[in-house]
């Protein structure tokens, strides 16, 4: 009961923030009613997906200060579990998603236990290494389609299929992921108020002090890592039924891991709104840059050049992200 109360307790934010957030939530709810292009719709779905990935990363990376650059492996585990189960045994999405989450969380315990003995750079590189090992494995494993990947053909399941989540129109996917999005905000809000959340922030600020206060540092990190993993894996499952083409390169490459970390970092790591702000800027920027400069002007790669420059500028000039700028401006006006 208390957990539920915590999840809905936003009272520690200023009133102004909450009003803005509620307005934006309303806009998200009614967005599909306005005329929009299918490209805008796809971008919105990507934005919601990456916000949830970012929120997951933020739990361990932002609140806990553990730079994880291997989140893509859990996108892969979620996506592949759902796709393989649907194609082989016709398991509906709502069953395969929790199974995928269970597998991902199990795997996160297996590698999290040794990983969290490392710190800082060593930890970050080790997460990349595990992610790449898994990707190499999926590229030769026949059950998951090896390097060809898996393809879910919507013709086999007459859409709209609410059990397997196979739709022809994007609007259905939009509302499903929007539901996930609101749920994710509530879970993170619960996490912020929970004992674990406080322990983790203590660890980020001073690990030795946290240990001396009797916090089991290693175990707290592993638990939060598992929570973050569950987020990422659930959206990975959604990725499988939404994109319908699952290849190791698209779901598990290092670029995805870094993009996830970047959402949170650009918006402001360690704040509830950070990953959402980051995704709302980066995802539209990425897809529109690619559309305008990459596809139309024939300048392949220029979108990622600009992207790289943005990352460099943010990390050099304002490492606390956009939320950091907002907070500083507020403090000055007070």
């Amino acid at each position, binding site marked *: 009961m208390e957990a539920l109360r915590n999840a809905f307790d936003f009272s520690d934010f200023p009133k102004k923030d909450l009003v803005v957030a509620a307005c934006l939530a309303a806009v998200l709810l009614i967005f599909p009613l306005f005329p929009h292009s299918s490209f805008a719709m796809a971008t919105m779905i990507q934005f919601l997906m990456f916000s949830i990935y970012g929120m997951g990363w933020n739990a361990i990376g932002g609140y806990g200060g553990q730079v994880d650059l291997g989140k893509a492996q859990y996108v892969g585990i979620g996506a592949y579990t759902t796709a393989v189960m649907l194609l082989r045994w016709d398991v509906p999405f709502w069953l395969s998603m929790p199974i995928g989450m269970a597998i991902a969380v199990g795997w996160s315990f297996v590698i999290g236990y040794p990983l969290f003995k*490392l710190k800082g750079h*060593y930890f970050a590189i080790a997460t990349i*290494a595990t992610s790449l*090992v898994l990707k190499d494995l999926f590229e030769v494993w026949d059950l998951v389609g090896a390097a060809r990947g898996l393809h879910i053909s919507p013709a086999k399941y007459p859409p709209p299929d609410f059990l397997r989540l196979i739709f022809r129109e994007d609007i259905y996917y939009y509302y499903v992921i929007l539901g996930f999005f609101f749920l994710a905000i509530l879970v993170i809000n619960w996490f912020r108020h929970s004992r674990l959340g406080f322990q983790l922030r203590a660890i980020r600020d001073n690990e030795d002090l946290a240990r001396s206060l009797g916090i089991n540092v290693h175990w707290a990190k592993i638990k939060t890592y598992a929570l973050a993993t569950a987020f990422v894996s659930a959206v990975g499952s959604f990725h499988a039924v939404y994109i319908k083409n699952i290849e190791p390169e698209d779901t598990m490459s290092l670029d995805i891991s870094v993009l996830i970390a970047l959402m949170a970092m650009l918006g402001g790591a360690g704040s509830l709104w950070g990953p959402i702000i980051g995704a709302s800027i980066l995802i539209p920027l990425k897809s529109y840059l690619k559309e305008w400069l990459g596809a139309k002007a024939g300048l*392949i790669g220029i979108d990622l050049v600009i992207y790289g420059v*943005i990352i460099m500028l943010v990390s*050099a000039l304002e*490492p606390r992200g956009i939320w950091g700028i907002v907070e500083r401006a507020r403090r000055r006006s007070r």
Partner: protein
Amino acid sequence: MATDVLVSSLVAGLMIGMVLSLVALGLTIIFGVMDIVNFAHGEFLMVGMYTGLLVAQGTGMEPLMTLPIAAVVGFVLGVMCYFFFVKFLLRGPMVAQLLGTFGLMLFLRNLALLFFGSEDRAIHHGLLVGKSLSIGMGVMIPATKLAAAALSVASFGCVWLFINRSKTGKALQATALNAQGARYVGIPTDRMNGLAWGIGGATVTIAGALLVNFWAVNPYVGLLFTMLAFTIVALGGFGSVPGAFVAGLVVGIITELPGLWDFVSISLDLRWMSKVPMTSFKYTWVYLAYFVIMLVSPRGLFGWKR
């Protein structure tokens, strides 16, 4: 007999290992001096490969003669990266440092994609191309690889001498040991940091100009070498120069594990072993090795930093 498989994969592993230790040298120097992990290291290598390729093809020059040009390009690139970018990262938290050099990596990689396109390119001319040396037992060594290995060791030795014998090198070491103390005794640590990036850039672009003689280059070539370099630096110990050399040889042999696997399966005549797709896992072992090394001995073989 199967011995030729064994000998040729061991020799190939050692030779590529010598080049890889030169690749890792820059990373370990940069890490040692200022505790920053450079994710764009493989992209520096790519810059070196493109420099070697374009100069050799553009001027018709002997590919091995492009090394000094590549070194200058790498030095300038490294120094510029430090003074215009990395310097500002050092003030921020670790997340910003990691993602910042990652941004540099994306920037360089996609700039190459924009200018050169995504296709593989390789050098097909030069004195050594197509020649090879027989060392008996039916084992042939391509002359390009042999030259690359020898010149890598020579460059590595020069840098080692510079660091250990020259006054500037000593100052660099002092900065690595204790930056604050070095500043008190009058060493310009900011310039030493820049120098570390310059040396790091120059060594890795030399390695790139050597590699391009037998390794096709495309804009995505960097990540593999970044990970190989991380593994070498982890095994040798972060910040250790001799460690990078020894670990480079070890990792070179790890990348030739498929050949050793074939040797075992042929000599013991085990059918199931030959069915395992070992070549697909060629670099997986390297990533696994990183993971295991970090867990068993985070300091590596010769490490002194924690």
